[in-house]
């Protein structure tokens, strides 16, 4: 299969490249000036390579003494003679004298990045080096920042900080092949810099570009929302029958539901201690699994991208947090597996695995992280590795929800790799009922409740926002209001492709309405 897939991808690539146009003429400045959105640019005077080298020498002379006196990267990489020579020239260096004191540093190449970005740097092969670096603006003799690299052989994290007298570096010498990892200074202004080992043995030029987090405010009132009618509604009554859910006496419907890849529905009918699988054609698996309350009380569920069902609940073991069960569509059960989740959680499936967010993540209060419970391969994550992450990974992207002081909801979509993060700001009068990243690089779907009151119907706005050039385009859809008291708080909204599924409970039972977002 792998060879066949490779062959098909190769064919696809060839077909794509065959569409390639001819190369444009050599780009002249006038080509830029023809573009209305680009300002007229005077090209900066190019610095000859020697200028970079000389700049590096001056910089290194200015920084080497404090760096070395403060512990330097490693005693192994500095010889005493050099140290002695520099010590007497701290304040009186000239380009000429420095050039004779310090050999021209080796400029290894160019680095690019944004302030705060984590990048890899590859040192020369087998070169003994420290983990300390200086970041100096081009044309300056004084560093503006220091960096400490994360590297094999160094038990420390990448750090950065503003340069100050008294800064120290770990006294370590490493020879691992790299790449080492550094964080570009988060407060640095865009421009050109030199990044040099504190002993001055090698440098990179650094082009720090404008931080390109793009931020957009979505005006949900700018255009009349488009009313959406359900494409279909699946309804059922209360009870324990094949097509029944919940307990009428209490008014509790299923706690949560999810959608399988073939559009089947899976309900965690928690009140009846069972897991229901309704097949897309109208049949059901009755029930897919049952739970003994004395052993396991399920309270959250998600269908993974592997179409297995991940159920989180409490085992009857005092003091122990929730456990995870993994249930196949064939009814097979794996687990329970221990987790660190200790409160009612919202499970979400992404292509990267299964994540649990506690109630705070779900939209009522500031998010505080998602806890990974299973990998993309469906393997349970060991308890020791269940560390909260700020953003919900979505394939190679991530989606983070934050709440500003003014109540504005901020959805931050990182499109993937080192692409530019995009922020969407939603007015504060809405509550967030669901958030999803669609299978496009820069599109998010946010489901917003229009009212939190139990006294009036709650409508829902669905905002699908995507980037078009330098603007954000948001389409706003509206779903007719329902009483919030009739709606379950968790697991009520799921997005599968462009289909949005809403589960709600009514006086007569449970219903799932499917809405199709226009392509």
């Amino acid at each position, binding site marked *: 299969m792998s060879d066949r897939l490779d062959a098909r991808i190769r064919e696809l*690539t060839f077909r794509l490249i065959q*569409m390639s*146009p001819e190369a444009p003429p*050599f780009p002249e400045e006038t080509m830029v000036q023809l573009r209305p959105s680009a300002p007229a640019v005077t090209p900066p005077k190019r610095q000859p390579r020697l200028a970079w080298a000389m700049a590096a020498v001056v910089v290194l002379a200015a920084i080497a003494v404090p760096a070395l006196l403060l512990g330097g990267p490693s005693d192994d990489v500095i010889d005493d003679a050099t140290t002695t020579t520099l010590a007497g020239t701290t304040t009186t260096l000239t380009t000429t004298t420095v050039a004779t004191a310090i050999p021209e540093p080796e400029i290894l190449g160019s680095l690019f990045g944004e302030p705060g970005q984590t990048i*890899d740097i590859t040192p020369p092969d087998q070169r003994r080096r420290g983990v300390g670096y200086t970041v100096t603006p081009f044309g300056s003799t004084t560093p503006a920042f220091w960096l400490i690299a994360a590297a094999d052989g160094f038990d420390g994290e990448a750090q950065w900080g503003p340069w100050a007298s008294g800064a120290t570096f770990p006294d370590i010498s490493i020879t691992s092949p790299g790449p080492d990892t550094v964080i570009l200074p988060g407060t640095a202004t865009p421009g050109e810099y030199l990044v040099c080992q504190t002993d001055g043995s090698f440098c990179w030029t650094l082009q720090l570009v404008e931080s390109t987090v793009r931020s957009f405010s979505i005006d949900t009132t700018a255009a009349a929302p488009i009313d959406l009618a359900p494409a279909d509604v699946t309804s059922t009554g209360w009870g324990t029958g094949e097509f029944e859910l919940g307990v009428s006496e209490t008014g509790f419907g299923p706690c949560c539901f999810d959608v399988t890849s073939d559009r089947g529905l899976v309900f965690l009918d928690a009140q009846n201690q069972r897991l229901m699988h309704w097949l897309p054609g109208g049949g059901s698996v009755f029930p897919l699994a049952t739970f003994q309350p004395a052993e396991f009380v399920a309270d959250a569920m998600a269908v993974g991208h592997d179409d297995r069902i991940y159920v989180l609940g409490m085992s009857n073991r005092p003091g122990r947090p929730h456990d995870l069960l993994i249930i196949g569509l064939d009814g097979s059960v794996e687990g329970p597996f221990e987790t660190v989740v200790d409160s009612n959680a919202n499970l979400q499936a992404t292509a990267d695995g299964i994540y649990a967010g506690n109630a705070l993540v779900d939209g009522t209060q500031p998010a505080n992280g998602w806890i990974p419970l299973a990998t993309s391969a469906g393997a349970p994550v060991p308890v020791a590795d269940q560390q909260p992450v700020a953003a919900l990974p979505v394939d190679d992207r991530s989606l983070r929800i934050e709440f500003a002081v003014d109540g504005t909801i901020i959805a931050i979509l990182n499109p993937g790799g080192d692409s530019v993060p995009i922020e969407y700001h939603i007015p504060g009068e809405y509550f967030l009922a669901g958030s999803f990243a669609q299978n496009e*690089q820069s599109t998010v779907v946010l489901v917003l409740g229009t009212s939190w009151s139990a006294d009036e119907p709650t409508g829902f706005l669905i905002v699908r926002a995507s980037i078009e050039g330098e603007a954000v385009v948001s389409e706003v859809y509206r779903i007719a209001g329902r009483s919030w008291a009739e709606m379950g708080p968790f697991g009520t909204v799921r997005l599968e492709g462009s289909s949005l599924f809403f589960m709600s409970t009514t006086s007569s039972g449970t219903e799932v309405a499917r809405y199709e977002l226009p392509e």
Partner: protein
Amino acid sequence: MTDEEIYRKHADDLVRFATGLVGPFDARDVVADACLAAFRSRNWPAVTNHRAYLYRSVVNHARSHHRSTLRRRVRELRAATPDVAATSDVDVDVLAAVNRLSVQQRAAVVLTYWEDLSPAEVSVRLGISEGTVKQHLARARARLKELLDE
């Protein structure tokens, strides 16, 4: 070697590469912008591997390029000429497939399947780690598999 000579040496490859990243409509613009930015950069005189530098510049410009252009144009093409895939040089289905991938994934795919580079060579060309290349490739393959199996 002058900038123009360097450009002429690599321009055709860069446009093919850019086509893999943003499609044929905007490949020329992306290459022109990327090269112009590279030539104007004060880093440029210190660059020894011009080819890798320009490839990276193309990726960077492709990333900041109008993200939805390709998607929109595919829609427009389909709407305007339903049989365009059969009659035109523009292969709409291929564009739609490419649109499923991130720019970094596209870059990894083009360099791997078009230029036959190994992950290590792709990592050098794009200035990213080999592990990241493999990650991009794995995810691109997974995405394309979904599409090709449809």
